[in-house]
């Protein structure tokens, strides 16, 4: 029934398209996979991530829902109890909160509460982050609010290949996965190899080797870190870049390995620094690498203020200069 990706295994495509292909593959492979959300049907979602899926898989597999996020996640839980594997779309980061109760008190806990009898293979897709000049509630990075909650897994790809494969793995997972999609990278292209065996979902990847300092990031900030490393290289500094990919669990082993080599760590994310991922990473890596660190782990992220109007977001978000500044400060120790 469904038309899947063209036969050649390696293709260049945008991140949004890679997720689309991944959903298509999953819908095709397993009749229990469902796609649900607001406008995911004929419109294909406001970012077109589900473009064409309803046409090919029908209204009973790709489901436009009433405009109620708690209802979307709550019914997805019920569908999972019935043996389905729903992939749920939340239209924008700022609209996940009406579903927060169902996610935190039900989705996250159901497996434990049932002493393992019940599984919750639900993926919650959330386009997140800023940088697209949007209005309020459309640019937030709430990943820490999910990572703190036991029972959830939280991931975020930075490139099309990971987007494709991590979505495959998330859908195959019997645990609920909060899948944060870096919306400002939706249109960035990259190679996707549908036959490459991917690494595990929760393993970080060294995307650039270096010796002087480690930059750790995930989702939209990985690309920024590459730009930072380029500039730093011109100044004679060798930065290693870790794409964390997973926020819960965090791959502390990989971070530790890198930091034991570079002895300096800067963590970058769009979310506010206060109680953000950087805090957890700094705390644990400091404990693990206490005698290795030449400088405190520094964090670059959003400020402790509501996400500002679009014309200020460039100041609010970590940018090249602010990350370079943190790198300088770390190297100055």
């Amino acid at each position, binding site marked *: 029934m469904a038309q899947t990706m063209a036969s050649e295994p390696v293709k260049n495509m945008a991140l949004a398209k890679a997720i689309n292909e991944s959903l298509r593959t999953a819908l095709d492979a397993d009749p229990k996979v469902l796609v649900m959300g607001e406008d995911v049907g004929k419109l294909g979602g406001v970012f077109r991530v589900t473009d064409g899926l309803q046409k090919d898989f029908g209204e009973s597999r790709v489901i436009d829902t009433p405009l109620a996020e*708690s*209802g979307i996640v709550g019914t997805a839980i019920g569908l999972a109890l019935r043996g389905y594997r729903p992939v749920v779309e939340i239209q924008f980061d700022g609209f996940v909160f009406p579903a927060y*109760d169902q996610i935190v008190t039900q989705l996250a806990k159901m497996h434990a509460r049932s002493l393992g009898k019940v599984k919750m293979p639900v993926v919650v897709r959330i386009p997140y982050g800023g940088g697209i000049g949007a209005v309020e509630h459309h640019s937030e990075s709430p990943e820490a609010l999910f990572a703190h909650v036991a029972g959830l897994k939280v991931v975020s790809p930075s490139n099309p290949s990971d987007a494709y494969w991590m979505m495959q793995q998330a859908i195959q997972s019997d645990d609920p996965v909060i899948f944060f999609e870096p919306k400002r990278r939706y249109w960035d292209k990259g190679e996707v190899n549908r036959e490459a065996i991917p690494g595990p979902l929760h393993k970080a990847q060294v995307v650039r080797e270096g010796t002087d300092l480690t930059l750790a990031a995930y989702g939209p900030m990985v690309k920024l870190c590459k730009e930072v490393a380029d500039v730093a290289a011109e100044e004679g500094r060798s930065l290693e870049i870790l794409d964390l990919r997973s926020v819960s669990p965090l791959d502390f082993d990989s971070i530790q390995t890198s930091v034991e080599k570079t002895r300096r760590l800067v963590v970058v994310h769009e979310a506010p620094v206060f109680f953000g991922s950087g805090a957890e990473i700094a705390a644990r890596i400091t404990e693990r690498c206490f005698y290795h660190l030449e400088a405190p782990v520094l964090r670059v992220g959003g400020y402790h203020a509501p996400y500002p109007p679009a014309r200020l977001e460039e100041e609010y978000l970590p940018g090249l200069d602010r990350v370079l500044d943190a790198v300088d400060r770390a190297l100055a120790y």
Partner: protein
Amino acid sequence: MTVESTAPRKPRRSAGTTGAKSTAGKRPTAKKAPSTKPELVQLLTPEGERIESAENAAYDKYVADITPDELRGLYRDMVLTRRFDAEATSLQRQGELGLWASLLGQEAAQIGSGRALRDDDYVFPTYREHGVAWCRGVDPTNLLGMFRGVNNGGWDPNSNNFHLYTIVIGSQTLHATGYAMGVAKDGADSAVIAYFGDGASSQGDVAESFTFSAVYNAPVVFFCQNNQWAISEPTERQTRVPLYQRAQGYGFPGVRVDGNDVLACLAVTKWALERARSGEGPTLVEAYTYRMGAHTTSDDPSRYRHDDERAAWEAKDPILRLRRFLEAANHADEGFFAELEAESEALGRRVREAVRAMPDPDHFAMFEHAYADGHALVDEERAQFAAYQASFAEAEGGN
């Protein structure tokens, strides 16, 4: 200031709730919305007389040919459920349970609806559906685990198609709706039933489940036990018209049934389940009943309600009512009641012994099942915990 909610409220058989009083003195009481007919489905009077009215015909047919054996079965279910419930209450007093949420007074609503179900139907309960659990064949001792604090409801929901107790009120109505959407997708003709309380009816999740089930025409029955109270709050704090009327505005029928009349509950639930099975979508059933006891063993109802309210409801006791009917119809003899009494005692004993024998969970249990596919941090913390525990063993060994 006169406080309306404690004025002894005389529940009427076909009662709508009265309009809520405004907090601003000058605003008059709101008018009642018109209600549909019959206002209350009742097949047995409190005196145990069978009502056969034309108004009830649509429901009555579902129990028209009920056998004496089945009637005795309903009676037995109610008696044993009450016995179990009383045992649990006393086990709480003895410190064997941390808490107990008694269903006293709601036996007819639960057994009537529970016995309307088929095996392949699926149940989403609150924390008080001990009678429904009984009908599903869940071993009652299993229900006590979460109240003892050894688990959060450790039965396998799929063994008896009886989901875990849900404490966050209203949440399960969405799970039921989603499950029912899945049933429809599968082309099965099973139905799903979601229990919730009068208090829970105010939660946004319940409204969303009405919307989803209506839009997808999901085969689900919403079974609201309106036991008049949400802890200390009377139903007037949740609505100013009878709750069953809420369904209409979502495009599906709502019916109020006498929740202390097991026959009526059985009939109305069967009717609603048949609607679900035959593709007519959701139904709201409001079982008008009464919480005879405290909200839980932690609660003290004397702070907020008068004893005479309870007394009025005692006259409508669901068990007594069916017994009167059975006796008048000569459907049960002394031997039946005596045997049941003995069975009750045995059940009480069995429950008591089972609870006392219930072991505390292994310390490592808290790490189990946090995830189905594992989580690196949980592994790390489990290992740290193990090492930490071992250090005590060593320390003790060293002494």
